[in-house]
């Protein structure tokens, strides 16, 4: 399989104000699945197209196993890109679609038939080879597109929003299928998504891309709980930012002194914690706040509370939220492990 390296990719679409790729660097290890996460327009699809060779970057290098592939056209690269829409060829039946790449390589008919059957079985569509694309459901179409790429045994698989066109229940199923196939085949995979949950489930590591470059890469939980900067924290729904100073494992700010987890950055900065991490009750890092507003958001209730001119938002389940009444005081605990410091903000 293939190790992917992106080095300082730079790309500005003609007439665009801001670059689509801005010094984008990324390493994907052999056999790893990395989820490239970002809001729409952050350049993640552009990045896939550059890796596949469909667009050339203005500057920077794409390397497969350390060797630059900048001079190779898409058909000669080890990477196969699966488009968001699936892009099945309407005039071919399912088996012909799946065999497309092998036919382009002029493989023997018998080999093509065998490998197509194998790939269709892998995506559990063994008996649909003779269907036409328009006779398939959205989920089936996506699986055919996946089979069409897998049949080529590519060194690198690039998936562009493979689940975005599916219903919620199909999404979970497809997610598990992609995860399983990737584990089984060991194909190095880069999957693009705008969905945090999807990224966390699919990726061995998650790379958060904002404004054309990677802001943070790591295990999903690290991005949620240990954001590298304000933009990362905001992307994951962070809304609590407390200015102050971090030193010797403690944070001094308008809430008094709070105990920090080990390894928290030192110096001037912003304390952040996820709204769902806040718990009602007393103990370490407990503060008293005045409730301003409570808002029902389905599974959780969002509570806005204030102290010393500073607002905090908490997301709590109905039972825990019952104690919060606008105009009254509450006692909240800010668990040490949920705190993090964004330095220099």
């Amino acid at each position, binding site marked *: 399989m293939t190790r992917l390296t992106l080095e300082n990719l730079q790309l500005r679409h003609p007439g665009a104000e801001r670059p689509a790729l801005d010094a984008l660097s990324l390493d994907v290890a052999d056999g790893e699945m990395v989820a490239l996460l970002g809001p729409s327009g952050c350049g993640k699809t552009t990045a896939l197209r550059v890796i596949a060779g469909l667009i050339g970057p203005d500057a920077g290098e794409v390397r497969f196993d350390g060797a630059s592939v900048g001079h190779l056209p898409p*058909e000669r690269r080890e990477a196969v890109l699966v488009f968001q829409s699936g892009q099945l060829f309407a005039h071919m039946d399912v088996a012909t679609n799946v065999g497309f790449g092998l036919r382009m390589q002029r493989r023997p008919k018998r080999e093509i038939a065998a490998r197509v059957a194998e790939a269709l079985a892998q995506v559990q569509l063994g008996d649909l080879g003779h269907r036409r694309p328009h006779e398939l459901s959205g989920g089936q179409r996506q699986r055919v597109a996946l089979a*069409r790429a897998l049949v080529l045994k590519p060194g690198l698989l690039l998936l562009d929003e493979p689940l975005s066109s599916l219903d919620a229940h199909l999404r979970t199923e497809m997610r598990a299928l992609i995860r399983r196939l990737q584990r089984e085949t060991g194909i190095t995979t880069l999957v693009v998504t705008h969905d945090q949950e999807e990224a966390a489930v699919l990726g061995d590591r998650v790379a958060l891309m904002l404004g054309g470059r990677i802001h943070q890469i790591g295990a999903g939980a690290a991005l949620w709980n240990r954001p590298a900067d304000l933009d990362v924290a905001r992307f994951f729904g962070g809304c609590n930012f407390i200015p102050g100073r971090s030193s010797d494992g403690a944070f001094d700010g308008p809430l008094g002194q709070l105990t920090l987890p080990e390894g928290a950055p030192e110096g001037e900065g912003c304390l952040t914690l996820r709204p769902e991490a806040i718990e009602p009750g007393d103990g370490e890092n407990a503060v008293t706040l005045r409730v301003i507003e409570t808002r029902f958001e389905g599974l959780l209730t969002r509570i806005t509370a204030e102290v010393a001119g500073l607002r905090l938002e908490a997301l709590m389940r109905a039972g825990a939220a019952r104690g919060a009444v606008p105009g009254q005081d509450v006692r909240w605990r800010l668990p040490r492990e949920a705190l993090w410091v964004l330095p220099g903000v």
Partner: protein
Amino acid sequence: MRTALGLVLIAALMAPLVPLALWSVARGWFFPQILPATWTLEPWMRAFAPRSDIPGALLTTTLIALAAAGLALALGIPAGRALGLYRFRGKALVELALLAPVIVPGIAVGLGVHGVFLRLGLTNSALGVVLVHLVPTLPYVIFVMSGVFANYDAEAEAQARSLGARPLQVLWHVMLPAIAPGVMVAGLFAFLVSWSQYILTLTIGGGRVVTLPLLLYAQAGAGRNDQAGVLAMLSLAPGLVILALVARQLSGRGMTFGGTR
């Protein structure tokens, strides 16, 4: 109701052809007879007799129409692709310029082109006639094809490239099958438009390149109603065949030139 209306419409369109058809099989047909007194196949025998110039004209017309349609497709498919898929500066101007041959009378175009072709040595030749037939056929092809490409998803080509297809393979295995219905319609129309050209063939061919319409005008002008009738029937033939072929494309649901997906 719709059927009745359709029948009236067909009758109105076909009615003028009836006398021509009758002429081609009549011996002596004078006013006030409603139908010819005697029937004969003699005009048809004469048309295909060894010394007749009709078989030659039939072949010339067919070859010229095939060549003109082929050339119009070769030029019109890329042009239609550019107009249908891409936005570029001056696109509206290009579209207007492409319409120009449809607006400007054929005789004016013919005379203008004649001056140029004279210098290039293209007058009085079949090649010159084929080239000048591009003037009326090319706009048809371009407009049909730009409609087809407006509904064409070029992302399919990118997908094919990533799956390992070289550019020519993409053209053959992905683009052509997707636009095939449009290409067929455009090609058949181009063939028909070339097939029925008179003015342009006459001005550029200078009478040396003899096609069916030239013979038809000559015979009709000379009052040879029987031969004119035969020629009219022959001229009609490909149109009817083509109409039968594309009837499904043109009727109702199929009537989207971009119906490639």
